[in-house]
């Protein structure tokens, strides 16, 4: 049975909402002339026709039919229209650079047509014939407006600095965009971080997350309270419709039950924000790791003595708590081939290079030797006491001594046992690496850690349970893996090597993790 007939028959089983029978403007005929379908053309994406017919809405493979009638699209002149909208943190530099690199990678000519920094498009064309293949348009605003564009069917891809919230998922489903919380509806393009910045002359070098939240809530108003001069603190943030500001609110303010102060100075872009902070010795702001301009970045400290800076490694491992994955959402409709090719290109090493050059953190996993983690060990020893004994530490060092930590780490959503968005992607990423034979003939160790809450024995059990769960999820996502050439071990170290202080929620969340080590 040929594709055409199969499609028609399949469509007969589809219930439709019964659109109005408009004028029959296309007639699609199978190549052998035996089957003919007439209807109103709803769309053509370069490969498939969507036609409204007496049988309801049918989707037919263009390569199996010929089209006749006034509504038929110009096959030769088909230009894929791809509209990308949302966070300017992604749309200003990174996504355009990815489009340029994608075009070059595929031997296509490129022209950027610019109306402004916010509205521009790329025309991709065949170099030999000059035929336009695709038009990729950008509308750079912020995460919220990007979502509005998606809902209003004014964009095909949405750039977001935070995950969509449950009510947004629901609204998207209501207008027919599908379930945007499904794994294939979003992908991480790169990793960003929310970093606290001050003017270069400011003597402060680190701040605890709680103090940072209190500062932005307006409850700590003076630099003198932070060990600085007697001067009021000037607060700088992105506007509230920006994913950057919303992500900071979720990860830093809400966990302490705080809201933003009224006197925060709002900025439309990260560059504007850091340029303002750099000029004011009494200013503090929250910016993107990729855009710190001429400011100084503060480390995040903890009461128990930890200090962590946003670095490439700390963002890859999510050891730095304020990470912000760069997300690209697509609705549940068939995108033109050029768009699908572009999305596939985003995972390539060439695309990862573009991500790095744009100042973000790419997702390529790196191996970190134990030597490079001396600070962690020192802290582990310092934190040892009644709960964690010297025996525990010796056992841990014995296992990890000859191994290297992989940057791929698994962490959980606040107050839940579900993996967070970066970790869910990590499952797939690790699974794909394993299927591709990346760590063949090596030993893979899933090492479970917990926070310090509760008894050490209970935590050991929890740690092992979590490590097992991650191992099972990875193996399930890698059905083609030849497990005979890979040794997998599960270890539990419980509270043994805290990454952050246990006295606060966010620190405990950082500590609850499963690490991957390789021998």
């Amino acid at each position, binding site marked *: 049975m040929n594709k055409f007939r199969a499609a028609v028959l399949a469509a007969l089983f589809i219930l439709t909402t019964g659109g109005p029978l408009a004028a029959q403007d296309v007639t699609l005929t199978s190549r052998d002339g035996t089957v003919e379908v007439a209807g109103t053309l709803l769309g053509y994406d370069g490969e498939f026709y969507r036609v409204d017919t007496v049988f309801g809405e049918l989707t037919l493979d263009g390569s199996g039919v010929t089209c006749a009638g006034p509504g038929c699209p110009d096959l030769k002149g088909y230009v894929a229209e791809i509209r990308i909208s949302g966070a300017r943190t992604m749309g200003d530099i990174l996504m355009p650079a990815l489009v340029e*690199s994608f075009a070059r990678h595929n031997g296509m000519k490129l022209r*950027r047509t610019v109306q402004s920094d916010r509205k521009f498009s790329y025309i991709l064309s065949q170099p030999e014939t000059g035929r336009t293949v695709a038009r990729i348009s950008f509308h750079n605003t912020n995460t919220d407006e990007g979502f509005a564009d998606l809902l209003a069917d004014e964009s095909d891809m949405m750039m977001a600095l935070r995950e969509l919230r449950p009510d947004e998922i629901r609204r998207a489903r209501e207008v027919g965009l599908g379930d945007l919380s499904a794994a294939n509806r979003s992908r991480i393009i790169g990793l960003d971080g929310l970093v606290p910045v001050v003017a270069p002359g400011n003597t402060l070098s680190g701040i605890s997350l709680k103090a940072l939240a209190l500062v932005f809530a307006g409850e700590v108003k003076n630099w003198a309270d932070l060990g600085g001069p007697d001067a009021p603190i000037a607060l700088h943030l992105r506007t509230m419709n920006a994913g950057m500001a919303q992500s900071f609110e979720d990860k830093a303010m809400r966990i302490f039950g705080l809201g933003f102060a009224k006197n925060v100075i709002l900025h439309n872009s990260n560059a504007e924000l850091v340029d303002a902070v750099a000029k004011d010795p009494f200013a503090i702001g929250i910016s993107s790791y990729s855009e710190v301009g001429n400011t100084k970045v503060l480390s995040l400290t903890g009461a128990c003595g930890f200090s962590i800076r946003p670095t490439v490694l700390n963002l890859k491992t999510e050891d730095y708590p304020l990470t912000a994955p760069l997300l690209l959402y697509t609705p549940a409709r068939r995108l033109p081939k050029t768009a699908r090719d572009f999305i596939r290109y985003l995972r390539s090493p060439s695309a990862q290079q573009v991500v790095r050059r744009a100042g973000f953190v790419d997702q390529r996993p790196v191996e970190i030797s134990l030597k490079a983690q001396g600070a962690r060990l020192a802290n582990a020893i310092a934190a040892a006491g009644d709960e964690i004994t010297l025996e525990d530490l010796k056992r841990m060092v014995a296992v990890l001594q000859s191994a290297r930590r992989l940057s791929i780490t698994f962490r959980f959503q606040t107050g839940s046992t579900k993996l967070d968005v970066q970790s869910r992607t990590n499952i797939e990423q690790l699974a794909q690496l394993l299927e591709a034979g990346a760590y063949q003939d090596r030993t893979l160790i899933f090492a479970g850690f917990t926070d310090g809450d509760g008894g050490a024995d209970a935590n050991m059990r929890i740690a092992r349970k979590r490590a097992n769960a991650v191992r099972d999820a990875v193996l399930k996502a890698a059905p083609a893996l030849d497990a005979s050439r890979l040794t997998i071990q599960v270890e539990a170290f419980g509270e043994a090597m805290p990454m952050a202080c246990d006295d606060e929620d966010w620190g405990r969340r950082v500590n609850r993790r499963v690490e991957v080590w390789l021998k």
Partner: protein
Amino acid sequence: MLNKFKTLDKRKIFTVSATFFVAWATGFAMQNSDLIAEQLGVTQVSPVHAVELASADLTTKNDTTSAHQFTMPRPPRAALHPVSGQIDKAAIRERVRRSAIRKTPAVGFQQFSPFGLACSATFTVKPAPAAMVNVTLNAPCHGREAVEISHNGLAFTVRTTTFGAASVTVPAMAKDAEFEVRFNNGETLWAATSVPEFTIYDRVAVQWQGKSNLKIHALEFGARYADAGHVWAKAPRTISYGVQARGGFIVDLGNANLPDAKQAEVYSFPTGSINRAGTVRLSVEAEVSAYSCGHDVDAQVLQKDATGTIKTVDLTLIMPDCGAIGDHMVLKNVLQDLKIAQN
């Protein structure tokens, strides 16, 4: 004897002597391909002189003498499209071997400029401080002519003097820097040199044709407009800033007074040698003028891509309508800001 030559068909003589020259030159090139490659790799293109025939008999060859001045064959046009970055020395040798003959008149029919100078032209390139290149053209038979010089993606129009001279200092856009000059009659000259210092600099360029007059604005390390750290065409600094690793500088190329001239503006920053960390904000400005208002302005920007080689992106600016004459279209994202790490 000479009379006999004069009555012969000039073209026939030219073809014959050209054929002889090709055969001889090819043999010479094959024997000395290393020598040629070395010459190409350093500086000069030898002056083009006509080959002098020792005897009147055109069919006999006397190629045992090496006293003949050898002229560099010109590489084929197709090979001369602006390259972005890498030179393949083997490809150069190959081009030389397969090169076409320049259309200079040969033996006995030396042409001269109106001032009595021989037409033979020279095109030389020499590295200069701050990863720049001094480009010198001497083409006596192309006096007062608008010629186009191109280099690894840049292209700009200059006018030769009455005596056919032109000299420009051009920022190198690649370590292996290639240059071409094209005359109105379609003839071209080609030269190349190596600029190792190029790796120290970050370079960005914007180029256009006609009166669009685009401008690069660089705000170095937090400078505001009109501060000392604001570098642009009206405050371009000098190359000594780059040489002393103090900051960036701007160079304008091309003669705006020539009709429909190609022009380029290049900003250079000594990223690899400056002892300072921070950000240089780059933007491109286009004035809404009577010329550009309501039109689409074509331009190009050149900047390093993720692989580190300078790439060209074609731009079309959709200028506001003529009610906005005097305003500027300011684009902050067609050029990526420079992030300078501590050296």
